[in-house]
């Protein structure tokens, strides 16, 4: 359903992504792991045009786009079919939890308010926060804010949701509630591309794992194979360094 080819991105003299190619099939839950500064986040941001790639193509659905020369209309059309969950939640501070979810429906999709409200309440129920619908973000914990952010992404019925280190800004005791919501989402067949440091999520929930280092994809496999039989020496080194910490 989504294929990236030859994605390159540099910030001035720093090469952040070198010739990254990646395929995501419908229903895949792909974990992107790797050390800090390996370009994982930039990859996601390029896919939703929060950064502009220097070169590369994106096949989304049945159309192919040149990532360096996106028409504004195409960007808008693709964003309508994708969800994005940020590391720092980025909830609208002047909107309640419910309004955070309805905003994209009522304003961007011109849905009528009652229908949007029903969909939003459903989405909030899925993340276990229907009783917090009228709370403002400042009145919610980090874990709750991130769950609202996930509801906001889910409510637009996207074909894929991008997660950018969704648990990295959370206190340790709040990580579990967010991961469990993501696990539920994965079991419903949602296509997900998840940049994460959570190895348990990569191992137990994701169906595929992509390992990135220095802006390039080093290894890619099903998650079972990836953890059982890592092929590259660098992957093995990374995995053992993580095992050591746990």
């Amino acid at each position, binding site marked *: 359903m989504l294929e990236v080819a030859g994605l390159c991105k540099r910030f001035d003299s720093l090469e952040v992504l070198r010739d990254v190619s990646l395929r995501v099939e419908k229903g895949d839950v792909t974990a992107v792991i790797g050390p800090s500064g390996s370009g994982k986040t930039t990859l996601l941001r390029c896919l939703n045009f929060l950064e502009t790639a220097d070169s590369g193509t994106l096949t989304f659905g049945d159309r192919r786009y040149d990532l360096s020369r996106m028409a504004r209309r195409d960007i808008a059309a693709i964003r309508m079919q994708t969800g994005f969950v940020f590391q720092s939640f980025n909830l609208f501070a002047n909107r309640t939890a419910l309004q955070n979810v309805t*905003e994209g429906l009522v*304003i961007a999709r011109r849905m009528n308010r009652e229908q949007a409200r029903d969909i939003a309440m459903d989405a909030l129920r899925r993340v276990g926060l229907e009783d917090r619908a009228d709370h403002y973000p400042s009145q919610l914990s980090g874990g709750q804010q991130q769950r609202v952010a996930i509801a906001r992404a889910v409510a637009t019925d996207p074909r894929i949701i991008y997660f950018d280190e969704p648990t990295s800004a959370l206190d340790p005791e709040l990580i579990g509630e967010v991961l469990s919501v993501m696990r539920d989402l994965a079991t419903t067949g949602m296509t997900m591309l998840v940049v994460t440091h959570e190895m348990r999520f990569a191992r137990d929930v994701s169906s595929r794992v992509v390992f990135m280092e220095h802006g390039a994809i080093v290894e890619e496999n099903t998650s079972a194979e990836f953890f059982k039989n890592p092929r590259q020496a660098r992957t093995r080194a990374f995995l053992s360094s993580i095992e050591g910490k746990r």
Partner: protein
Amino acid sequence: MTERLWNILIDSFPRILLPGLRMTLPLTVIAFALAMVIATVVALIQFAHVKLLTPLARFYIWVVRGTPLLVQLFVVFYGLPKLGVYLDAFPAAVIVFSINEGAYCAETMRGALESVPAGQLEAGYCVGMSYAQVMRRIVLPQALRAAFPPLSNSLISMVKDTSLAANITVMEMFMATQRIVARTYEPLALYLEVALIYLMFSTVLTWLQRWGERKLAAKGGVAHA
């Protein structure tokens, strides 16, 4: 205090207050409203880095903030007739005060816009909203809330600054006072009296500010509150 002085003070009170209500107040309200429009537009231009217009906005702020208000009043009222532009005192004052206040408030607004975390703009894009939609519904409301106290400050400053309009023959409170002083030779009492009336105006505005801030806080959702 002598009876004569009392009589002068009581007699002059309405004669100072009335020009206040007829001139100072409309001048402040009209000029500040225009200044808000200018400030918002100029701040949005800079926030969005609009080509060509951004340097123009910077230039406007640079010139206006770098020159005295009194000089600006003189240039427009006494200077422009040289170019064939004749303005009555009141419209001239409105123009100068709105342009002057607009420059200062534009900087306040720009700071307030930049205080809204950029991630909320990105989140808006990601749920499919356009730049205009995110600005109107998410960023601007939060920026206005953040700008409310400093803008109230500017408004209170402005009420007092309108006394400078006396220099271009606007018959406002201060000029009215000067005329009474010229007749009665009681500068201390009368200038204290007009100071007191300015204080009344500012006090009412301070109350309005508190009331406004409470209203905004009650609506909830202030970032990091």
